[in-house]
């Protein structure tokens, strides 16, 4: 595929991904992935030491859905909203057709509880390491590893990065 067309397609996917999470359409989030898939939020310190434990580890679309249902129905946390800023994208197409993408992300979190209503802070910074494949003309995430520099999580992590 043409290098620039591919880059455009990956950029479009990442923008759609960010919009999905930032506009609280979490139910659509699992559809960005293949099934099975890998979505993991990995603290940078674990990655550097070769340690396997992740903050979130899902290896099927079902597990992603379970995270969303838990977010909606089970878990208790303060209301908040995200803004993803994704930049420094690099895309590479492997000889076997799989596509790897690497990008820097920042997430600004705005708190919406009555005590801190409307306050925004840098919540998380890190890197996306994605593996993408074409499925019926659509780019899907086969793997997304979120390497979190901000491994000291402020309060809690419930909304996906």
């Amino acid at each position, binding site marked *: 595929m043409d290098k620039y067309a591919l880059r455009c397609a990956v950029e479009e996917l990442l923008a759609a991904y960010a919009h999905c999470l930032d506009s609280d359409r979490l139910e659509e989030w699992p559809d960005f992935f293949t099934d099975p898939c890998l979505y993991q939020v990995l603290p940078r310190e674990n990655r550097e030491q070769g340690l396997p*434990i992740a*903050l979130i580890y899902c290896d099927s679309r079902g597990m992603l859905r379970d995270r969303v249902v838990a977010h909606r129905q*089970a878990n208790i946390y303060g209301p908040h909203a995200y803004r993803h800023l994704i930049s420094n994208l690099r895309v590479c197409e492997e000889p076997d057709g799989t596509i790897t993408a690497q990008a820097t992300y920042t997430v600004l979190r705005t708190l919406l509880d009555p005590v801190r209503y409307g306050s925004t802070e840098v919540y998380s910074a890190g890197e996306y390491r994605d593996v993408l494949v074409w499925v019926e003309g659509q780019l899907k995430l086969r793997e997304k590893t979120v390497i979190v520099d901000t*491994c*000291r999580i402020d309060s*809690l992590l419930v909304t996906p990065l």
Partner: protein
Amino acid sequence: MQAAAQIAWPRTEGARVPYQVFLDPAIYEQEQERIFRGPTWSYVALEAEFPRPGDFKATFVGETPIVVTRARDGTVHAFVNRCAHRGALVCREPRGNRLRHTCVYHQWTYDAEGNLVGVPFRTGIDGKGGYPADFDPKQHGLQKLRVATYDGLVFASFSATVEPLAEYLGPTMRQWLDRIFNRPIRVLGYTRQFVHANWKLYAENVRDPYHASLLHLFHATFGLYRSTQGGGVWLDRLGRHSVLHSYRRDAEAETAAYRQAGLRSYQATYTLADPSLLAGRQEFPGLVIQTIFPSLVVQQIQNTLAVRQILPKGVDAFELIFTFFGYEDDDEEMLRIRRKQANLVGPAGLISLEDGHATELVQQAIVRDPAASSLVEMGGRTVEDQENLVTETGIRGFWRYYGALMGFTDVPLEDSHG
């Protein structure tokens, strides 16, 4: 000498807790002296984190930065991470391997035990400058802490008078630690969480079986933990440490009580699209949350094993560091199970993400009411072992011991185990 913090401490065996203890900077200061530098053992590391000579880990006892090291002969040491010369942080990395620690400011160098072994230009240059002739390097080592280990857990203390670690833990706590630390472990990773609440709100949370199935839907709905299960809370002789243990007896009867009570946390129709999350291996019966005063929690929930280190960060914040581990002899499948079940705990844990939030809700609500108090009477007003899971006995034990250690009460500590 700093004036003692002023507080009207109720004589209620910990059944009433004035919110001032979560708000008052003077109390926080006093805790650093009387608890974290007092006659206690603070958890600082697992031996498995620094197995080789020269391995070190930078951490904290209370808010004091320290370094835990392994010397050439394999012995474990700890020292305050503050240069004896002009006070700079000596060790500037969270972990690593070296047998010499050099302060970058003036290159004073210490060995892995904290002894001063090098001072640049000590005798001056060309007969000028340098230290006085009576300068004795032996007098200028890093401040050392006492170190002791039990079952591969490393504890440090500033106190010269604290009882030996095994005695400090006591027979009940040792027995529960032996249950988990029954063979060599392997560290699997870390998660860290910065919570905007006083550290003692978390100390209460991990001694509280009452909240566990009411706050946490995953516990109640999937029967991972329910107050209707078998189990109880066991304390050490002073009530400062606790073990919360639950196990399944009759699943149907346990569920019925939740269904009848109409609790939010029990949802009969809630299911997992991918139940592999909870498809673990039978390893330990039930669940265990064990606390060792003041800074350690040991957890076994399903197949997730972790120690949690509680680090106070000012009167209204603490950091919680989870160190996940398995056993050296875990097979590949077990490793996959532990990695998947880590989803349950930590800052993004389907169960435990809620605990930090609950403590923040308290901190936010009490802000202008230091004289008001919380009510800790579930299971009575005494500090004792209780074989049920609708009790706050462990929280009362914490506060009774805390009040005595802080000098808030002259009531002598009575042995709850006789």
